[in-house]
């Protein structure tokens, strides 16, 4: 089980409150977590990464364990603490505007 925290607008869209969890089989990476997230909540498809290229949307950021993972390869293993569910993966809308 992987813990995930979505930004407010995506929580509304997915109709969830607070933190959620997804099951990932195999290596725990950004790609596998996002795959699992989109499978469980299909309305999130296209809101975090491009439908076709799978590229991260420019104003979406990924953090965990006080690290910025936004620019890591989507196939890099996530920190152990995320894989062991002691820490959540934070999906964040980038600070922009006033």
């Amino acid at each position, binding site marked *: 089980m992987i813990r995930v925290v979505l*930004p*407010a*607008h*995506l929580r*509304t*869209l997915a109709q969830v409150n607070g933190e959620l969890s997804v099951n990932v089989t195999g290596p725990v990476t950004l790609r596998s977590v996002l795959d699992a997230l989109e499978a469980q909540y299909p*309305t999130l*498809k*296209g*809101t*975090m990464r491009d*439908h*076709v290229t799978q590229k991260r*949307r420019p*104003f*979406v950021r990924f953090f965990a364990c006080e690290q910025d993972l936004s620019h890591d390869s989507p196939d890099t293993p996530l920190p152990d603490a995320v894989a062991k569910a002691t820490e959540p993966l934070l999906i964040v*809308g*980038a600070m*922009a505007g006033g």
Partner: protein
Amino acid sequence: MSGVRVLVGTHKGAFVLTSDGKRERWEVSGPHFAGWDIYHAKGSPVDPNRIYASQSSGWFGQLIQRSDDGGKTWQPVGNQFTYEGVAGTHQWYDGTPHPWEFKRVWHLEPSLTDAETVYAGVEDAAMFRSADGGKTWAELPGLRKHGSGPHWQPGAGGMCLHTIALDPINAGRMFIAISAAGAFRSDDSGETWKPINRGLVSQGIPNPNAEVGHCVHRIALHPSRPDVLFMQKHWDVMRSDDAGESWHEVSGNLPTDFGFPIDVHAHEPETIYVVPIKSDSEHYPPEGKLRVYRSRTGGNEWEPLTKGLPQNDCYVNVLRDAMAVDSLDDCGIYFGTTGGQVYASADSGDNWAPIVRDLPAVLSVEVQTLK
């Protein structure tokens, strides 16, 4: 019992305003999709309970929402808009090639005959169609690839396909407009397209009479007479009597012929409405007076409509998709402002009153007449 439902898209959500046929008392529902840009929402003429809405965000991209109960509840449907084949390039503001990139849906136009079919006008400019109630979308690539696409250039608001007008008499005919490429027509349900910009003159482009490159802001037609088109261009109010083959200017005595929306009275095909805006660098009404101008002669002769509208210190704008008419016996006219007011007139524009005063900036207004 008759009534109206006004669908309002704003920078921070959608609102549904309903009233009976008197249009005096209004119920306000919303915000739906709070915090998101709702560029447009429009109901199906076949099934008024079917409404499509474009929901977008600079952070999280594009969603399409669908309601099957007149806007009470919504469900997200398909949001994958992929250009067909190699997207190629159009021109950037400085004339250099720029790759075609999907940004958002500006306009949704439900089919006149099938509630499951809906067209989407998008930025970067292209036309998409769904035949399954918005679940899946396919580009009509004949528009983008008809030949002039690589020469299209964005307007100040982006390179958006913002107007789709379906011809209710000539099957398969449709008109669209793109900023800043111009107007185009298809006679075969969107398979092939031709530019229809002859007669438009736009200072500020290398060839002021060019086939494409004109910043068309809005096109309107009356369903009984779809060969007659009215256009609010960046500057100039224009008219065509031959389905866009040629245009002539009908700005007449307007105080300024810059503006965004234009619309036609539901029962009088020669009665049209515009909202003059001071200039392309000062997007507010001249003299701080919010005035709708009406022509009962199909253009050239215009009268200001001011009763109930602010006549001093008013510096709002009215955007291109933010005016609509109902089809009750006494035609209602509606428009929304960037200041968050939605004004309604239940007597063809003679008298106005705000339905709401303090919404987020209004991006679009559509009206459903409920019989």
